[in-house]
C-alpha cells in the first residue's frame, strides 16, 4: 500500500462514503480514489505519464493499457471507464465486453467510473452511445491485456501460446492436466506499461459466450438491499449542509437580503451571496432547509412574460411560428412545390410538444470541498472532465487542482441538475471554507432542471393517384437541446446567477427530423429559434421523440387518406430491409389486423371503451437502431381518458450485449415515454415555473402502466452494437396517437394527450371516419 493511501481509511458502510483522516492537517485527499475502490480494487497512478503528449495533464492517456485495466492484488479485474452508470446498465455491459475478450468472470470485474485523473476522458455519457462508442475501446484494451497475460503464462507454464486456453481468468495447457496459472498469480498488482494494441486479435462474434447472454446487473444487489453508494450518501468529515435560495423566476435579480431573518435560527446559519446567487449553510440538513425558507430576500421580476398555463404556451407557439430565423436545410431533393401542386391529395398538419422535465426521483445532489490547495467534488455528473473545467472556471482556480469524483445519482435521462448542484456546493464551500453538501428540493428539481424544450413541427405532403407519397415538406422549429456546462461556468446555474450569460448553440432539435421513407420530392428543414422560455437541454432523445411523433403521426394521417393499412403504407415507402423487418416483427408481435384506420366501430353502448391499435417506426438518428412500436389503447369516450393496455416493440440495435439489460431499457424507455405522452407538461407563469411537484407535474403511476410490453429483439451478431437507451423512447407518442385515431377517428397533434384534449379532438373528428367499414352490422 502506498504511503499516500496509508494515511487515510476508506470506510464503506451501508452505501455511505466516509473519508476518514489520520491527521487533520492532511489536505492532499482531493486525490482520493473513487468510492468504488472501497472494495479493495488496486491503487494505480492517477496522472498521465510525465511528458506524454497524448493526454492533457491529469488525464490517463487513452492509448495506455493501464488507463483502462488493472489486475488487482486479489486477482480481480478493474475496468476504468470514462462512461458512467446512469441507471441504464452500461457498467454491466462494459464488464461483459471485458469478460468476453479477457475470458474472465463478469461478477469479478469492478468498474471504476467517471473520476478525473483516474478514468480515461471519454467525453460525456450521452446519446445512448456508451456501448456503441466506448464498447470497442474497452474491447481492444481487454484483448490487448489477454494477449500479454497469455504470453506471460506461456513462459510460466513452458508451453507455446497456441496450446493454451483461458477460462474464468485461469490459463491452462489444453489437455495438459493440472498445469495452469491464474491472471492474479501471473500479474496481480503489476502495471502493463504497454500501449493498447489496435490490432490485438478480437474474438469473432460467433465465439461469444458472455456477450449476447443475459447478465445480472452488477449494481442491482446493493440497490435492492439499500446499501448502494449514491451521491446523496456521501458524507465528509466537517461537512455542512447548504441550500440555494432560488429567484422566483429565471432572470430575476436579487435586490436585497435581510440576514437578520435567519440569525436566530439553530445550526450556526451562514448566508452566502455572490451576485444573484444566494444560499445558506447550516450544521444539519433540516436546519439548512428551514433557513433557506426563512431567509427574507427581495427579488426583481423575471423574464417569463405575463401569461400563464395554456395562454403562455399559445403565445410561445405563436412566436415560434412567426420566427424569422432562416431555416437550415437537412434534405432537399426534387421539386417539392411542383410535386405538391400536381398531387392528387394534399395534406397538412402541425404538431406541438411542450417543455418537459427529467423528473429524476432523487433530486440533484453534490458534495464539494473547496480548500486553498485543492477542490474535490462528488457528483452524479454525466461528464466529470467537463464539470471539472466548469467548476475551475466558476471558482477561478486552475483545473489541475479540481477533482471530480463521479458517484451515482438518481437516474437522469439527459442533462438534469447534477452539474448545477455540484456548482452550488462548490460556491458555498468556497465561501465558508468547509465541505458542503447541497441537495435540491423537489420544487427546485422540477422548477430549475434544464428542460426538454417545446417544439413545433409543420408538415405537408402530397399523394399521387395510387396513394404513394410524391412530395414531403417538413419544418421543425426548435431551440437547441444542449446547454451542458462543457467546461464553462456560463452554463452552470450558479454561473448565471453570478453574472455569466447562458451560451446556447444549435444542437439536437433536428435529430430524426429527416424521415426514412422513399419520397421523390423531399424537403426537410430546421429553424433554430431563440424562443426558449426555460433553459433548454438534452432530455432522452433530444429532438427525436418530437420529430418522430410528428413524422409517424403524419404517416398515419397519410395512410388514412390513402385508405391503406398503416403497416402496409409504411412498408411501401421503405427500401431498407432492416427497417421493414422491425415493422413486420412488431406487427406480428401485436397480432396486427391489416386494415385501414380508423377501426370500424361496432354497435354498442356509447359509453363503452373504444379500442384501437397504432404503429410507429424510426431509425435512430437515421443511422443507428431500428425500432417499431405498436400501442394498443382504450379510450373512454365519456372522460376522454386514454389507457394504454399493451405495447409491442421490435428492436434492432445490431449486436446485443446484454439481452435482459436491453429489455430493461426498452421497457423503461417505453413506460417513461407513455408518461411523457399522456401526462407531462411543464407550466409557468410570471412568477416562475408552476409545475413543481408530483401533483402539478404528474407522471405515470402503477395503476396506469400497461398490462404488458412485448419485446422482440432482432439480434444481429455480426453487426456493430448500437446504443439503446433512447431509440425506443421515440415511437411511443405517435404509436399512441395513431392508436387513439384508430379507436376514435380523432387525431391528437399536441402532447400531452390529456382527457380534455382527447374530448376536444373527438368532438372535432369527422363523423364519417368513425362509422364506416365492414365491422358495422
Amino acid at each position, binding site marked *: 500500500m502506498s504511503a499516500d493511501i496509508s494515511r487515510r481509511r476508506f470506510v464503506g*458502510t*451501508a*452505501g*455511505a462514503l466516509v473519508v476518514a483522516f489520520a491527521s487533520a492537517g492532511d489536505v492532499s485527499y482531493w486525490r482520493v480514489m473513487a468510492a468504488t475502490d472501497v472494495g479493495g480494487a488496486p491503487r494505480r497512478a492517477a496522472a498521465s505519464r510525465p511528458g506524454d503528449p497524448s493526454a492533457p495533464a491529469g488525464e490517463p492517456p487513452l492509448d495506455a493499457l493501464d488507463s483502462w485495466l488493472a489486475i488487482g492484488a486479489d486477482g480481480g479485474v478493474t475496468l476504468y471507464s470514462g462512461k458512467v452508470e446512469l*441507471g*441504464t446498465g452500461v457498467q454491466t455491459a462494459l464488464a461483459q465486453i471485458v469478460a468476453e475478450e479477457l475470458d474472465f468472470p463478469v461478477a469479478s470485474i469492478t468498474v471504476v467510473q467517471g473520476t478525473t485523473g483516474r478514468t480515461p476522458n471519454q467525453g460525456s455519457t450521452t446519446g445512448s452511445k456508451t456501448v456503441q462508442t466506448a464498447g470497442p475501446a474497452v474491447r481492444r484494451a481487454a484483448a490487448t491485456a489477454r494477449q500479454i497475460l497469455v504470453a506471460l503464462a506461456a513462459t510460466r507454464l513452458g508451453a507455446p501460446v497456441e496450446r493454451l486456453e483461458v477460462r474464468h481468468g485461469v490459463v491452462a495447457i489444453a489437455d495438459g492436466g493440472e498445469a495452469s496459472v491464474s491472471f492474479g498469480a501471473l500479474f496481480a498488482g503489476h502495471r502493463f506499461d504497454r500501449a493498447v494494441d489496435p490490432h490485438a486479435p478480437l474474438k469473432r462474434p460467433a465465439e461469444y459466450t458472455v456477450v449476447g447472454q443475459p447478465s*445480472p*446487473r452488477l*449494481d*442491482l*444487489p446493493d*440497490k*435492492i*438491499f*439499500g*446499501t*448502494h453508494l*449514491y451521491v*446523496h*450518501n456521501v458524507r465528509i468529515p466537517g461537512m455542512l449542509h447548504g441550500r440555494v435560495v432560488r429567484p422566483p423566476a429565471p432572470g430575476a435579480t436579487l435586490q436585497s437580503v435581510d440576514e437578520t431573518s435567519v440569525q436566530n435560527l*439553530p445550526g450556526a446559519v451562514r448566508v452566502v451571496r455572490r451576485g444573484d446567487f444566494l444560499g445558506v449553510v447550516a450544521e*444539519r*440538513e*433540516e436546519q439548512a432547509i428551514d433557513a433557506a425558507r426563512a431567509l427574507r430576500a427581495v427579488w426583481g421580476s423575471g423574464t417569463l412574460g405575463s401569461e400563464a398555463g395554456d395562454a403562455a404556451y399559445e403565445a410561445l407557439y405563436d412566436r415560434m411560428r412567426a420566427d424569422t430565423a432562416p431555416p437550415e436545410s437537412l434534405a432537399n431533393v426534387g421539386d417539392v412545390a411542383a410535386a405538391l401542386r400536381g398531387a392528387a391529395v394534399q395534406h397538412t398538419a402541425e404538431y406541438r410538444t411542450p417543455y418537459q422535465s*427529467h*423528473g*429524476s*426521483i*432523487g*433530486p440533484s445532489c453534490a458534495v464539494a470541498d473547496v480548500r486553498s490547495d485543492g477542490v474535490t467534488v462528488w457528483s452524479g455528473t454525466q461528464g466529470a472532465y467537463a464539470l471539472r473545467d466548469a467548476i475551475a472556471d466558476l471558482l477561478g482556480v486552475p483545473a489541475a487542482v479540481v477533482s471530480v469524483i463521479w458517484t*451515482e*445519482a*438518481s*437516474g437522469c*435521462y439527459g442533462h438534469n441538475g447534477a452539474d448545477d448542484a455540484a456548482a452550488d456546493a462548490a460556491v458555498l464551500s468556497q465561501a465558508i471554507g468547509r465541505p458542503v453538501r447541497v*441537495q435540491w*428540493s*423537489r420544487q427546485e428539481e422540477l422548477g430549475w432542471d434544464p428542460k426538454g424544450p417545446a417544439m413545433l413541427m409543420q408538415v405537408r405532403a402530397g399523394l399521387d393517384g395510387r396513394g404513394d407519397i410524391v412530395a414531403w415538406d417538413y419544418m421543425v422549429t426548435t431551440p437547441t437541446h444542449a446547454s451542458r456546462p462543457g467546461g464553462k461556468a456560463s452554463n452552470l446555474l450558479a454561473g448565471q446567477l453570478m453574472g455569466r450569460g447562458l451560451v446556447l448553440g444549435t444542437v439536437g432539435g433536428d435529430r430524426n427530423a429527416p424521415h426514412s421513407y422513399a419520397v421523390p420530392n423531399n424537403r426537410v428543414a430546421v429553424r433554430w429559434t431563440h424562443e426558449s422560455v426555460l433553459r433548454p437541454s438534452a432530455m432522452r432523445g433530444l429532438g427525436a421523440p418530437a420529430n418522430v411523433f410528428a413524422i409517424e403521426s403524419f404517416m398515419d394521417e397519410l395512410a388514412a387518406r390513402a385508405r391503406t393499412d398503416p403497416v402496409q403504407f409504411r412498408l411501401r415507402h421503405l427500401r431498407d430491409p432492416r427497417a421493414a423487418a422491425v415493422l413486420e416483427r412488431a406487427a406480428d408481435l401485436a397480432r396486427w389486423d391489416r386494415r385501414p384506420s380508423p377501426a370500424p366501430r361496432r354497435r354498442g353502448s356509447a359509453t363503452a371503451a373504444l379500442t384501437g391499435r397504432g404503429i410507429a417506426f424510426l431509425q435512430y438518428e437515421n443511422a443507428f437502431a431500428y425500432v417499431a412500436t405498436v400501442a394498443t389503447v382504450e379510450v373512454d369516450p365519456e372522460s376522454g381518458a386514454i389507457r394504454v393496455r399493451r405495447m409491442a416493440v421490435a428492436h434492432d440495435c445490431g449486436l446485443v450485449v446484454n439481452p*435482459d439489460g436491453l429489455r*430493461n*431499457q426498452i*421497457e*423503461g*424507455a*417505453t*413506460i*417513461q415515454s407513455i*408518461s411523457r405522452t399522456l401526462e407531462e407538461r411543464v407550466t409557468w407563469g410570471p412568477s416562475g415555473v408552476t409545475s413543481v*411537484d*408530483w*401533483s402539478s407535474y404528474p*407522471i*405515470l*403511476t*402503477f*395503476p396506469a*402502466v*400497461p398490462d*404488458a*410490453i412485448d419485446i422482440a429483439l432482432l439480434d444481429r451478431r455480426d453487426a456493430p452494437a448500437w446504443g439503446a437507451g433512447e431509440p425506443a423512447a421515440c415511437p411511443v407518442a405517435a404509436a399512441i396517437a395513431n392508436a387513439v385515431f384508430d379507436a376514435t377517428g380523432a387525431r391528437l397533434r399536441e402532447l400531452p394527450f390529456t382527457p380534455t384534449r382527447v374530448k376536444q379532438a373527438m368532438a372535432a373528428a369527422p363523423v364519417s371516419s368513425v362509422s364506416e367499414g365492414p365491422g358495422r352490422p
Partner: protein
Amino acid sequence: MRDPIVLTVNGTRHETAAAPETPLLYVLRNELQLNGPKFGCGLGQCGACTVHLGTEAVRSCTLPVSAVKDRPVRTVEGLGTADSPHPLQRAFLEEQAGQCGYCLSGMVMTAAALLAATPDPTEEQIRTALAGNLCRCGSHLRILRAVRRAAPPRRNGHKERRP
C-alpha cells in the same frame, strides 16, 4: 435542553438530538447513516422514503420524529441483507427489477407491508398499493413481477415457499 427523543430502529435503540418536528428521514439518514430510505420529494408524494412503523408503511419524509413514539421503525436495511435476503428482495433480484434503483427501497418496503397484510394480493391490489411509489426509469413491470413472484406459491405454483 429538551430530553433526547428515543427511537427503536431495526431493533436497536437510538437517541436523537433532532428537534421534535424534524422529519424521521433526516434522522435515519444523517444521524443513523441508514441510507436505504431516500429523499425524493419531502412532500409525501413519491414513496422513496418509505419505512415501516410497526407493520405499517409510512412516509418518513413527512413524519415528525417525535410522532414515532414507541413504535418500532424498520428500514430496508432491517428487512433483509445480501446474506439473508427478504423473499421480496430475492424476487427483485431474480426479476432484475430496477434501473437507477433510487426508488427501490421504497418499493420494497411498500410491497413488504402489502404482502404482510395481504399475502395473496390481486394484480389490482398490488398496483393500488404501489400507486404512491413513483419510478422514473420505468421499472414498473419488473417490480410488479417481483412482487407477484414473492407472493405465496398458490398463485405461483412453481415458486419456492416463503420461509
